[in-house]
């Protein structure tokens, strides 16, 4: 089971890499020829002055808060909330760290049996953290009405992390996709769908569980 997860993780990493390669925009900076070819008309024989990062405000970090619904396999769906911090490496790639928290409902067995409880109240809390790599697969503009255009991007994301559930830590792979809608240059709305995949033996048998999460959030670039 553990190895199946690893194979899955490796696959998702290679898919991301391939995506990057196919779209002709790897992590290496691409220089378009037309700009390089044109000779500057004015050629002053002066020393170049390097503008340091302090001179210009760079906004490569993005912090966000989100809330939504997360389904824990066999344990129903509940409200999930959390926070994310992303760093935009290039216009295509970003890394993201996130934490989230939700609570498990009763399994069907617990509900039907009347009184039997598989987990105590404190064991029903689920918290997760993960670190992922994202790729802006479809950047573009969205139009509202006739006079308003907003930048947006559809991205795919995958990563690894830890899920604490029922007094146990689970190595977790997450994959998903999201949509970023920039209201201004530095404020964005997000819709995110993630699958948190981990192995669990909670119900007696070792199995891979899929825990789907749908969230909406707001983020700020800084």
């Amino acid at each position: 089971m553990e190895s199946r997860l690893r194979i899955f993780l490796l696959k998702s990493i290679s898919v991301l890499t391939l995506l990057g390669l196919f779209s002709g925009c790897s992590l290496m900076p691409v220089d378009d020829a037309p700009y390089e070819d044109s000779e500057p008309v004015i050629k002053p024989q002066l020393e170049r002055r390097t503008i340091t990062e302090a001179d210009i405000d760079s906004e490569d970090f993005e912090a966000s808060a989100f809330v939504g619904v997360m389904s824990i396999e066999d344990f129903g769906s509940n409200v999930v909330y959390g926070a994310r911090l992303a760093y935009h490496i290039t216009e295509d790639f970003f890394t993201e760290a996130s934490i989230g928290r939700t609570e498990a409902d009763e399994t069907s067995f617990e509900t039907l049996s009347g009184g039997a409880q598989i987990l105590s109240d404190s064991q029903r809390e689920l918290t997760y953290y993960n670190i992922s790599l994202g790729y802006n697969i479809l950047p573009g503009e969205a139009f509202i009405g006739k006079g308003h255009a907003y930048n947006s991007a559809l991205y795919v994301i995958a990563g690894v992390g830890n899920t604490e559930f029922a007094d146990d830590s689970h190595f977790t792979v997450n994959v998903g996709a999201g949509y970023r809608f920039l209201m201004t240059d530095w404020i964005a709305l997000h819709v995110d769908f993630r699958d948190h995949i981990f192995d669990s033996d909670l119900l007696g048998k070792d199995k891979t569980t899929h825990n789907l999460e749908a969230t909406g959030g707001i983020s700020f670039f800084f």
Partner: protein
Amino acid sequence: MWLLTAAIILLQCFITTEALADDEYYKVVVAEPYMEMHTGPGRGYPVFHVVDRGDEVEVIKRRTDWFMVRTKRGKEGWVRRAEMELTLTPEGEKTMFAEAGFGDFSRRRWEGGVLAGDFDGADIMTVYAAYAMTQNFSAELSVSQVFGDFSDAIIGRVTLVAQPFPEWRLSPFFSLGGGLIYTDPNVTLVDESDRTDQIASAGVGVRLYLTRRFMVRAEYKNNVIFQDKNDNQEIDEWKAGFAFFF
């Protein structure tokens, strides 16, 4: 739909009222016949405005390799770094933007990253921070979480890393370290209790510089766990991940 539109536009009004003083921004003069302004910080966004040679623009901010500039008439758009580097300062000097590059990679001071992999059949995830004392030697502090079938563990380690060829893009390194491993048996096993043991590691690995402040790192470590029992436990550890440097 109308509600959404209204909400977004309303929100925007509140947000854009944060006006900044004019002379706060860095100014550059267009030296090429023209400079293209895109609607967004990406290669696909359309060019909606062109700034002529000799015109001055203010540089508002930067995102990855794109700069947001404002013309004298108040038009705001995004310009790629390659084009920004062809501009002049108001004094007539060429501009160049500080950019972390390969040179900074071999001269880095701080490094931090995330690695994931295999720890004797169990999954492992590691977060680390390192400080380079010289180009060849750095000290590293790492925390790992191990997810096993029968027990979970947390490892804290201090490692000395030697890098014989700091100027190579694909640069190998050797490591030697020690620390503590805290093992927490899973709840279903009742007879084992939590314990803390000492751990020593020796390893080899490579760093590959990618772009900007970003690199990929892969490593193998051979660990010895000094247990209370007479036999020490030897564990192979394989990891790969990404890291930043400053």
